[in-house]
């Protein structure tokens, strides 16, 4: 679902099962201004020592879009950005596959770095997703716990 603000604020939020294409997402942002730098962050499913068959990502439809959109708006208010895109996948994701993409475009490089970094830090704790491990031996593992360091990571933006 395209974010309602994509035409004026150049914020694009997608919650989807399918994979994303980084190159086309960067090209999408180029229409919004005279871009000097684009930072992207791609979060991947790790294989955790080879035991993991897949992560199953559950999410809260509607709230996920709303929360991520809110985070992107906050990044826009805080940094001098031209455009920002956040895509979060759900469903079963195998090791090595993409989970999340954040792309931030700006006139200057530091705002692009900070914008993407900020959105990722808040996605970790404020986006309603939960991850369950499926192990290679066929058993179901644990729900991935929230990490204290993810809460702490947000402190750098105070």
């Amino acid at each position: 679902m395209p974010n309602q603000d994509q035409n004026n604020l150049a914020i694009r939020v997608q919650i989807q099962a399918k994979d994303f294409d980084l190159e086309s997402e960067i090209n999408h942002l180029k229409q919004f201004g005279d871009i000097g730098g684009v930072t992207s962050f791609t979060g991947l499913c790790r294989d955790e020592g080879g035991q993991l068959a897949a992560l199953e990502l559950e999410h809260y439809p509607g709230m996920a879009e709303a929360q991520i959109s809110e985070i992107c708006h906050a990044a826009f208010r805080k940094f001098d950005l031209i455009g920002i895109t956040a895509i979060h996948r759900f469903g079963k994701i195998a090791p090595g596959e993409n989970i999340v993409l954040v792309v931030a475009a700006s006139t200057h490089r530091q705002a692009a770095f900070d914008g993407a970094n900020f959105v990722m830090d808040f996605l970790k704790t404020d986006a309603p997703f939960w991850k369950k491990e499926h192990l290679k031996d066929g058993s179901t593992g644990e729900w991935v716990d929230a990490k204290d360091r993810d809460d702490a990571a947000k402190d750098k933006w105070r």
Partner: protein
Amino acid sequence: MVKLVYFAWVRERIGKSQEEMDLPEDIVTIADLITHLRSLDDGYEAAFQEPQVIRAALDKTHSLHDAIIGDAKEIAFFPPMTGG
């Protein structure tokens, strides 16, 4: 009548992903509702045994346990979020 929705291990422990419920009149806050749900059966009790780790949303807005439910139509309970 409100819709209650549950996610992740809260959903697993309660044994359903959503339900409709008539809330007793004396339930004002999310904390009141958690206390009420824990009294219903062992599944709810297991889900909410550490209420301080449970997150809640009123009509898809993240809300604290002392938030007043008011005329919210959808109340969600879930573990701490692990996005990204």
